Every structure is written in C-alpha cells, then in structure tokens.
C-alpha cells in the first residue's frame, strides 16, 4: 500500500502554527477593510497582499510532502472472558456436579467459536476478574484455583486503555453478566463512563439467559466492626430465583468453635417477596481475634444449588478492653500486687471479688450494717455473667468452701468455648482448694492431684525450662533479671503437664509421679480457650522486694503482661503469625504463611483441625530457613471452619482460625444478568449476542501498518522567502499606485 500526504515542517509547535494562522487571517481582514472603498487598483492591492501573506506564512511554516509505504493487517480484537468462580455454576440450571456443563465450559467453547469467527483478526484472549486481565491459556486448562471472586470489567477495560500496547479495534466480553463492575442499575451515562474509556465498540456474548431455581444467602453485612462482648447487627439478604417458592426462610447464625459443637448466636426468619428477603440478626462474639461464623438458611424444596445456602465467614473481632474476673480466697500481699497491676492497666476492665470474711471469723458487730461486706454472688457470677468475661483469675480460693464447685463444669465449658483461665497458687489453690478430680482438670494445663500433700513450704527458686527461655511470654522478665527469679516460700503440688501443655518454670527438687520435675508455671490450650497454672503465691516479690528493686519493680508487670497477653492471644506474645495465602477455596490447594517473630527458632509443627467437627488433624512438620516467612501447603480442604496451630521450636503454639468456602461470595447470587451485557454493548456501539450466535458479531476494519515514511520539503526555505519578498514588493507598488501608503 502506497500513499502520500502534506504536512508542515515538524519543528513548529502547535501554538506557533495557530498564532501564524490567526496573524495571517487578521492581516487579510484588515487589508479588505482598508481597500473596500478604493476604486483604483483595489483588486491588485488585495491580490498582491494575499499572495504576500501566503508566501510569508509558507516561508515560516515550510510545507513538506510525506510519502508512505506500508501494509494492511488484521484488526486487533481483545476477548475478555469472565474469570469469576461463579462461572463454575451450572449453565443449564442443573445441580452442581450433575452431568450438565458449567458456565465456564460454555465460555471456553465460546472462545473457540470466537477464534474461528475472528480468524482474520489478531485475537488476544484474556481472563478478567480482579484488576489486570491475564492471558487465558489457549488450551483452556485453567484450574478453578486460578479463578477469582470478582468480575470487575471496569478494572479490566481501564488496564487495557492505559496499556502501551496497540489499542484494540474491538473488545468482546464473554460472561454471564453478573458483574461486580459496572454496577447493576447504573444509567446509560454512568455505564458509558465506566466502560467507554477505550473508545471502541464492546461486543458482549451472553453465556446464560435463564436463572437457576436457587435460594441463597446473597449477602451478609455487618453494621460496623466486630468488638468482643458488644452486640453486632448483621443484615442478611436472602435471594430466591426462577420462581422458587421461598415464602419465609429460617436463618441461623452459628459460631464454629474448636473441640465443641457450634454455638448458635442468633436465629430468625426472612420473609421473601419478589425474590428478595432481608433479616437483621444481632450477635455477640465474646472472644477477640479471628472467629469463624456460619450463616445458613433452610432452603425450600426445589433448590438446585445447595452450596450457597450458607456462608462461612471469618470475623476479625477487636477488643476494646480485656474484661477480667479476679476472685481471691483471702487478701494477701500476692493478691494486693496482682490487683495493683490489673488496676494500673487501662486496657483491663476489672471485676474483683475477694473473700474478706469466712464463717469462722468474728468481726464483733451487732449488725452486718456495720460491715462494708457484700455476699459473694457466686451463683450470679457463674450462671449469668461468666461469658461476658475474657478471662477468669482464680487466686488461692477453696472451691468447696466458697461454693464454686457446682460451677466448675461451666467454667470448663467457658474455657473450651474460648475463655481464658489462670489459677494462681496458695494454700487453697489446686489440690488445696479441692479442684482435684473436678471438671477443671480437663482444661488446666497440669494434672491436679487430689491426694495430700496439696502443697509444701520448702523454699526454692523456680527454674526456667527450655520453653520458658524460648517463649515471648517470659522474654521481658528473663531479660530484666538475666534469668534470675526470687526465692519462693513454697509451692502447690502440681501433676505432670497435660498433652500439648508447656511448662515454663519447674521446681528444682520436687517431682511428679512420673518422675519429671514438677511444673510451677505452665500454659495450655483447651478447646478454643487458653489456661495458665501458676503453682506459687510469691510472684509479688517481682514487684516489691529487694530482688524487685533491681528492676525498679517492673518485673511483676513484665510477668503478668506476658501471661495475660498470651492468654488473650496478643500477637506480641505469640512466637509466630499464621495467615492464609489468598483465599481458602474448598477443593483447591490452600497455603498457609507462617511468619516467625525474631528470635523464634526451631522446627515448625503445624496442626490443622476442623472447627465444630471431630476429624483427624492434618499435621505438617518442617525445618524452615533461618529467617523469613514460610509457606506451608496443606492441600485441598473441605468447606468449613479451620483452626491452624503452629509451634515453633519449644515456644507455645500460635493459632489462627479461618473459613474455607466452596463458592463463597462468587456463588452468592447465581442469577445471570443478560440485560447488563446488552446495555454495555449498546452504549459503546457494540453488539450483544448469545453464545450460539457469535457469527453475528461484526469484524472491525483491518489495521494499516506503516513500513516506510519519506518526508521532503516542497520548496527550499530561501525560495519561499524570495517569493514572499517579491510579492510584498509588488504589493507595496500597487498600494502606492492606488494612493495608499
């Protein structure tokens, strides 16, 4: 293909050219005004003036001739295929896993049809979903793991328009129309702004026209952030499509917990009208951190997609203040120091009950009105208020004498449901407090012997174990005193640690029945909760004593910051952090990323367990590199809630709960939206067809590609200048003859 054209010299900028044009035009106009009443030589004056102006402009602009030689190639056409996981839904309204084809399979077949139809075009096939569109493998081998939740067409078009690559002549969108963007309900102007950035026609291919008969949890919205112990309103939207008779749909919200049955947080019904129903349910999550909540409906008969009848969501529950119940059997300096520390921490909301008078004490009063004492509301506390506390501190209190024993099974269940428990030593703690053989035995980290001696008064200095030296829980205390501890005046008799528990301090001389050194301080987990056993009543010496003065009394705070922080899963006291890489999609490979705290050394043992169900845990052991995060492949998981526990070396385990969904958000609304695809095509000058009719899509004009371009001046600059001078000279002569100066 050969072609030629004209242009001005390319060393003039556009403003200069515009200025020249305006100046020339103004000069000619003034000349015409000047000679309009002249009868003599008027025409000559105008003719020479116009010539002079033209040649002067040409001398400045120096016109050139451009000759090009090139070729014609097929137009560039971009095909955008919806890469949302939603396209794994059936295309024909059958059940998932039935013999029918999925929307994805229809889409890939459509791509082959487009390749055939646009055989003369240069076709680029991309998947779009979240952000930049990515090339689609030509063999259609994309796995569901590479699919995403969103269908963001606007983001994909925006990336295409900003790309340095050749602009396509047309775009073909292959989708079911249930796009994340452009939003449903946008008017034509908004729609054109959203998808018209490329300025080319957008053709659409509709994969599915008819909605399946489906009832689903379309959306779960929380009014604000989740805060422990505070009510959170959930607005749950239920959808019923294709005329499915839903009427009133029961909705249940449950929390999935480890080792125990799921707890029902709220239940209600949604009245479905015109295919949509909403219900607001109020839930209260008592534990902070990642909590897994299931929102489920009882779908009516005829529902074809059971997988979107529930959503399993991970709530990140914040904590405004740690609410602690501190119960002490009698006032001592150890109780005093613990209370002082608890009260000094602004982040702790403390409720305390100390037994100040026993039945044998004689306060020598005529009436109880002379005393500032109140009855210990043990039944009210444990029957009504226990779940409102983040942790319970039982300090040297006899379980039988103060009627705690009937409530101990409830306390054990409270721990298993995520509560924290610390037992602090003293003559009436552990076995001395008659806790041996009670339900607490299954949650505290050490066995509680129920036979004498319950304690001894041998002075000793506790010893750090290897785990005690490794854990971030005691790191601050360890560094304050360089590993030293004050002398204790005695110890409770504690049994061996429960499986999975960690001993941080041990007795240098006393042994358990199995011959191992007796634990003095131990940490453990039970169900969703954590527990601590401290078998001495002398840690107040870390806050007040000659020993404590070495660290200005900060030792006590260092110890209890660590203990309560670990109990409340404060990340500062965890040896590592666990997170899911990307999303957890049931049936697809899942990876967990483990980031260790500086100084956390040793092999990693990861244990993955189902929440709310009993099943064999997945256990992975590995020797990680010295530093940096570690990614652990845990394989394809079933849908549900999971808890991942990782232990780094001898440190206490770190835990993270997460949800794994089959379709998740992508499957929450199974209805196709063919109308949106029709409108997108209409506002951009494109054509919308169904997947059987891609042959009706128009082919864009071919693209011309320039191979050679030759630029040559029409005349040399001196020639334009000379002719301009001659013309202006003739104009001057004509003006003189005409009586103009």
């Amino acid at each position, binding site marked *: 293909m050969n072609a030629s054209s004209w242009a001005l010299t390319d060393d003039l900028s556009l403003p200069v050219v515009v200025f020249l044009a305006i100046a020339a035009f103004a000069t000619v106009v003034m000349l015409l005004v000047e000679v309009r009443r002249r009868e003599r030589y008027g025409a000559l004056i105008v003719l020479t003036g116009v010539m002079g102006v033209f040649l002067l402009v040409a001398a400045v602009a120096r016109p050139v001739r451009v000759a090009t030689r090139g070729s014609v190639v097929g137009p560039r056409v971009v095909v955008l295929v919806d890469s949302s996981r939603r396209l794994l839904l059936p295309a024909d309204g059958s059940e998932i896993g039935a013999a029918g084809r999925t929307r994805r399979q229809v889409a890939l077949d459509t791509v082959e049809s487009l390749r055939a139809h646009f055989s003369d075009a240069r076709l680029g096939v991309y998947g779009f979903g979240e952000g930049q569109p990515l090339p689609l493998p030509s063999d259609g081998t994309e796995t569901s793991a590479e699919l995403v939740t969103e269908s963001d067409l606007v983001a994909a078009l925006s990336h295409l328009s900003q790309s340095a690559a050749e602009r396509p002549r047309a775009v073909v969108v292959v989708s079911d129309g249930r796009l994340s963007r452009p939003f449903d309900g946008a008017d034509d102007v908004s729609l054109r702004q959203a998808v018209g950035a490329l300025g080319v026609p957008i053709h659409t291919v509709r994969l599915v026209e008819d909605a399946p008969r489906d009832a689903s949890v379309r959306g779960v919205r929380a009014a604000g952030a989740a805060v422990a112990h505070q009510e959170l309103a959930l607005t749950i939207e239920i959808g019923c499509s294709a005329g499915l008779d839903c009427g009133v749909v029961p909705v249940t919200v449950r929390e999935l917990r480890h080792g125990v049955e799921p707890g029902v947080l709220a239940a209600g019904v949604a009245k479905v009208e015109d295919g949509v129903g909403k219900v607001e349910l109020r839930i209260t999550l008592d534990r902070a951190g990642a909590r897994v909540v299931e929102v489920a409906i009882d779908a009516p008969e005829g529902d074809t997609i059971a997988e979107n009848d529930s959503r399993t969501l991970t709530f990140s529950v914040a904590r405004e203040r740690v609410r602690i119940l501190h119960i002490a059997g009698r006032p001592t300096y150890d109780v005093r120091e613990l209370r002082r520390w608890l009260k000094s921490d602004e982040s702790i909301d403390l409720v*305390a009950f100390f*037994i100040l*008078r026993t039945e044998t004490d004689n306060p020598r009063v005529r009436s109880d009105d002379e005393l500032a004492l109140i009855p210990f509301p043990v039944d009210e506390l444990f029957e009504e208020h226990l779940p409102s506390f983040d942790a319970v501190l039982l300090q040297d209190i006899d379980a039988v004498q103060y009627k705690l024993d009937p409530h101990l099974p409830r306390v054990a269940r409270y721990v298993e449901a995520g509560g924290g428990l610390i037992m602090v030593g003293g*003559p009436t703690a552990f076995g001395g407090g008659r806790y041996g053989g009670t339900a607490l035995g299954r949650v505290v980290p050490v066995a509680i012997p129920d036979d004498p001696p319950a304690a001894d008064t041998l002075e000793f200095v506790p010893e750090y174990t290897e785990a005690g030296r490794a854990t971030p829980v005691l790191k601050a205390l360890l560094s304050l005193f360089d590993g030293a501890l004050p002398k204790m005046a005695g110890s409770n008799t504690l049994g061996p640690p429960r499986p999975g528990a960690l001993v941080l301090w041990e007795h240098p001389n006393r042994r358990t029945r199995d011959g191992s050194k007796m634990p003095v301080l131990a940490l453990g987990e039970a169900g969703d909760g954590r527990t601590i056993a401290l078998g001495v*009543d002398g840690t107040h010496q870390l806050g007040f004593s000659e020993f404590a003065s070495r660290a200005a009394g900060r030792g006590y705070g260092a110890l209890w910051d660590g203990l309560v922080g670990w109990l409340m899963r404060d990340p500062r006291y965890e040896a590592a952090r666990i997170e899911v890489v990307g999303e957890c999609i049931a049936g697809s490979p899942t990876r967990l990323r483990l980031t260790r705290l500086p100084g956390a050394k040793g092999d990693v043992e990861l244990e993955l367990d189902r929440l709310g169900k009993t099943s064999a845990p997945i256990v992975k052991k590995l020797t990680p590199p010295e530093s940096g995060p570690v990614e652990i492949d845990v394989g394809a998981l079933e849908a549900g809630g999971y808890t991942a526990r990782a232990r780094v070396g001898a440190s206490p385990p770190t835990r993270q709960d997460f949800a794994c969904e089959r379709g998740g958000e992508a499957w929450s609304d199974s209805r196709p939206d063919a109308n949106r695809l029709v409108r997108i095509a209409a506002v951009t000058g494109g054509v919308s067809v169904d997947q059987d009719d891609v042959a009706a899509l128009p082919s864009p004009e071919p693209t011309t590609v320039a191979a050679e371009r030759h630029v040559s001046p029409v005349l040399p600059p001196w020639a334009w200048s000379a002719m301009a001078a001659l013309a202006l000279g003739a104009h001057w002569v004509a003006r003189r003859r005409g009586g103009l100066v």
Partner: protein
Amino acid sequence: MTLPTGATAFGQVGAFHARVLGTGGRKWRDVRNTGPSRWAWELVRRTSAPARLVSDAVLADETKLLDEPFLVWPGAEAIAPLSPAELRGLELFIRLGGVIVVDDSAPAANTFTESVKRELARVLPESPVVALDSNHVIYKTYYILDQPVGRVSGPSHLEAIVRGGLAQVIFLQHDLLGALARTREGGWALEVTGGFRQREYAVRMAVNLAMYVLCSDYKDDQVHAPWLMRRRARRTR
C-alpha cells in the same frame, strides 16, 4: 516439709505483717511494743486475712526494709534528720509501692508527726501531704467507719501522701498502737480516752488499715457501691 491441714500460707510471705520502722539506728521500744502483734491477732480473728502474729522491727537503712510492703512508724518525739541511706531506703520503699502508717503516740505535742513530714518531704519532695476525704476507701475497707479512731480521739480526718491514687503514707494522730497494746498479764496496756467503745473502734480502724494495705481500693469498685450506700443510709437513720 509439707503443709499441715489448715495451714494458711506458704511460709507466711503473703500475710499481713505490721513491721515497726525505726530510724537513727534505734529500733522502737515502748509500752506499745505489743500493739503490732495485737493488730495481727485482731485481723486474723475478725477477717479472712492471714497475718503474722509476731512482728519484726526494721531500720530504714536495712535491706530487709523491702522484704514486705507495709510498715508502721510509731513515735512520740521529733526524729533526728534521716541519713542518706535511710532516705534512699524509704524512697525505694515508697516508689516500689509500699505503705507506711505514721502513728503519733503523743498527738497533742505533734512533734513526731511534724518531724516525719519534714523528713518525708526530703524523700518525696514532689508529693505533698493532703487531707483524706471522709469518703476515702480506708473508712470502708472492712468496717464502715465515720472517722479515724485510736487511743485518743484526735482529728476527725486523716492526712496522707497520695501517689498514683494510693495513699502510701498515712498520718494517724490518734495513737493507734496505744489502743492495741497489751500487758504481759493480758490486760490493756494503756487507757483509752473514750472507754471500751472507742477501743473497739480503734481496733476496727486497725483492721481497715490492714485491709487497705492488702486490698488497696477494692471497696471502691463499682460492684460494692449500691450495698455500701444502702448500709450507710441505714446507719444514718
């Protein structure tokens, strides 16, 4: 050695112990010597708190000053200026959170209290002595009391050095140990100006002070407020 059944504490390290503070190298000797033991005895008899029945004396410049967080500092006459070691010891004791009850055995003369205030101003120059409100928690830590009481009636309010919300040095101008002291024969060592009833209230004051040391502001917790308000109202009627 294992604990016998009914034992109350591991080596008594956490038990209330009214240690008597001495300065100038002299441990306190007085007819009131038995007062601290009686204080502990009354506490054990009337409350659940454990206490050491035999009390120790400690000097302000001894390292064992920091063994426990409570001292009673009795006296009748002005004390000599404290040595640098004594100042350091008392400063450390208070900064770690210890509590001192300054018990003036001769409040009419007031020389002892004034001299202690003078010396404590050198220890804690930033912490002035203030009068405690009549609603202070000391008056309701165990018994409901209206005012401080000792062997003598004294002022109707307490003075204290308050740090971080805690009254750490409490000035008592009522000769509390004088009301508690016993003779070897088992009688009261000193007469009380208000008779039996005043001695009983002095004991109650001592119990409340011990409970304040052990529980600090526990009785100011919101959970106790409605009960205490009802009881005060009934007592007023």
